[in-house]
């Protein structure tokens, strides 16, 4: 594949387990070992109880479109050839929300409330970005 020129995460000790799991085809989130709160984005302390102890937990990757927008304006030149492209706020069945993209369909084929499931887009040898497809 040609070199991927769009932003990729900077891996560090904190987020590496998340992205390692993505590369291996799993969506893993942190569950607080103290209060049980399942959280995203990655953080070193639980935002509910401030415990530092957490366990990486594989979630279903299923959810629904909570909000949905389509970019026409180019804010970062790396996306200049992608417009119009969508960004979806995904409500995971397991609780947390994340920004992502809905892939595999035209932008106007997606609406708020649609069921989706995660897919992994391997953009480099190291990074597979979690995106979502409409659930069948």
């Amino acid at each position, binding site marked *: 594949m040609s070199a991927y020129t769009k932003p990729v995460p900077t891996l560090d000790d904190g987020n590496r387990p998340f992205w390692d799991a993505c590369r291996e085809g799993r969506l893993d989130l942190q569950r607080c070992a103290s209060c049980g709160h399942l959280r995203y984005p990655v953080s070193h302390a639980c935002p509910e109880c401030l415990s530092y102890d957490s366990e990486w937990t594989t979630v279903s990757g299923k959810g629904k479109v909570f909000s949905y927008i389509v970019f026409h304006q180019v804010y970062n030149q790396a996306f200049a050839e992608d417009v119009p492209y969508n960004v979806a706020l995904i409500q995971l069945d397991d609780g947390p*929300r994340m920004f992502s993209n809905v892939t595999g369909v035209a932008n106007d084929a997606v609406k*708020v409330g649609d069921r989706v499931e995660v897919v992994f887009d391997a953009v480099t040898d190291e990074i597979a970005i979690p995106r979502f497809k409409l659930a069948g």
Partner: protein
Amino acid sequence: MTLSNRMAIVGVGATEQGKLPGSTSHTLAVEAFKRALADSGLQKSDIDGLLTMPGTTAPEGSLNYLRLGEALGLDPSYTGSMTMGGGTAGALVQMACMAIDAGLATNVACVFGDAARTGGSRFNRASGWGDSWGIWGMYGAAANSAVAASRHMALYGTTSRQLGEVAVACRRHASMNPNAVMREPITLDDHQASRWVVEPFHLLDCCLISDGGVCIIVSSAERAKDMKQPLVTIAGMGQAYTTRTLGREDWWYVPHQKEALARAFKMAGMGPQDIDVAQLYDNFTMSVLLWLEHAGFCKVGEAGSFVEGGRIQLGGDLPVNTAGGNLSESYMEGWLHIVEGVRQMRHACGPRQVEGAEVCLVTGRGMTLNCSNGMILRRAA
């Protein structure tokens, strides 16, 4: 003791607005200060408090108070800079009130200048601590409010044309404001025909990017009685924040705005029925709809139909953004909303004056939907 009506805005000043080549955040802030000082009738030596917001083009950032203070030749007893985007102006005016009440200062100048237009500021930052939302192409200020609009549309049936009502109202008001940047009236069809920026936002759902400076001088109501301008007091003020974004399911709805306004209404002993005119922070059209719901002018989900038929235009039930707002007057990140609120209370707005207006609601909101505040300005009897 409550601060209600014990503090006053005694001077306001704004520079020319728009595209001002040769200006910098710094020159615009200085000019705004001079104009506010002249408006107040105070001498420079009377100003012992300096609170500033660094413009996006101010290289010194949070040290803006030092840069500006030196330029103005001030040795204040109280100073500092704050960065909350469009939530800053209101937060600084409220901070000035608290400083005066605490005896730390007497007359506080709140100052902002930015050459965002000529300086090329694009407000295109990707949010998200840790893994940036830019990984998924989620960039810029418009997108956050577009998320709110998309959700509001899905839940309540709000339409793009209803958003357009806000744009049309602001533009009509700007057409009556000689200092406004965009004065050519627009129609709902113009709004619909303008290009997409981030769906569901058209270009005419989005605020301007502007050069300009604004200064607001705060003093005690007691001192203000003997000053040059008609007395305009702050009847109520409030702030509320959420620092969480993805972590809060209702983040898109900025529910903390309702708390900020409830605090302001409580301090003032007033409710939405007491408001004659409102200056509602409008980085995007959607933001005005949310404020209308949060202030209780209409029920949750009903702001779209509320704004139809010119209700928020001059002559309507609730004139909103009577100078044109961020959408059409100039994008001073909410600073001009306070200025217009004060001028409405002074009955100094000429053809766009809301006749007999005595109470004005002014709101501010900033960053990734995180920061919000409200103030209720009152014309003294």
